[in-house]
């Protein structure tokens, strides 16, 4: 594997990790919001 290919793989892995982290964080907020809305709604 050439250094360029290695860099490309790492760049993609980093980008996907960042997107995954953002989605997970957004889901935490969303589930918290859903729980609050359900409790408030009785």
């Amino acid at each position, binding site marked *: 594997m050439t250094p360029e*290919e290695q860099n*490309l793989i790492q760049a*993609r892995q980093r980008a996907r990790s960042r997107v995954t982290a953002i989605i997970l964080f957004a889901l935490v907020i*969303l589930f918290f919001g*859903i729980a609050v*809305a*359900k409790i408030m*709604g009785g």
Partner: protein
Amino acid sequence: MSILTREPDSPSVPLPADWRDLVALTKPRVMTLVVFTGLCGLLAAPGSLSPVLAFTAVLCIALGAGAAGALNQWYEVDRDAKMKRTATRPLPAGRMTREGALHFGVGLACFSVLLMGVATNWFAAAILAVSILFYVFIYTIWLKPRTAQNIVIGGAAGAFPPLIGWAAVTGDVAALPIALFMLIFFWTPPHFWALALFVRMDYANAGIPMLPVVAGETVTRRQILFYTSIMGAAALAPVLFQLTGLIYGFTALVATGIFAVLAVQVAMSRETDPAQMKAERRLFKYSVLYLFLLFGAVVVDHWMLPA
């Protein structure tokens, strides 16, 4: 989920799929109209839903549509590779494995249905599940490769969102969301056949029996006009049955009139060169705007003239 793949330009190195390819797999452009009609169904429904739950319902509709799009691309990879319009999609371009796309689509479908059920109600979740299954099994796998009526019957898959949005609020369905379902159902043939006329060769090369491929352009043009007349009746039905007010009625009358004029132009055209098919392109573009206008008017009507 295995989404390692070998790209054509670097065959020796397995590359992880780019996250943008996963987004592209969900057909985000198609999703826009699905989300909008679902949102309008939700906003036009009587009763209220917490903004968080309403957002979640619309998110689930978007994710469900994305899952259906991903599963459609998973199944159609060989056909997509033969069409200019779809050859650059992640799967035919070799930027992702089929297995990865299947896992992504099934996972997203299950997540969207479960989240809809938990956040709103299980009736809305059931309709969402039916719409995904209908699109994948009835339209993509059964009808599309077999019959020229594929998008007539398959059009039902795209007509579910207003029902889902409405059901998310009320827990049931009523006459208005069913009328909106019928509107999208009868809008689908003229919309897709206008497109199919100027990408006919693409469909022919891929072996998809779209109406212009199997019945010819003259029949397709006549069928566009026929379904436009039924769509017009479906568009005016909500105001005639007093399900909506005059704002929708006026919008539907004018917008449908313009649609009819464009459909007549397509019906009268004898153009055979796809590059010169201006009337067909005009109808296709306008048909998207048409649906936005009518669904927007349903919501404005509901807000201006509450029952």
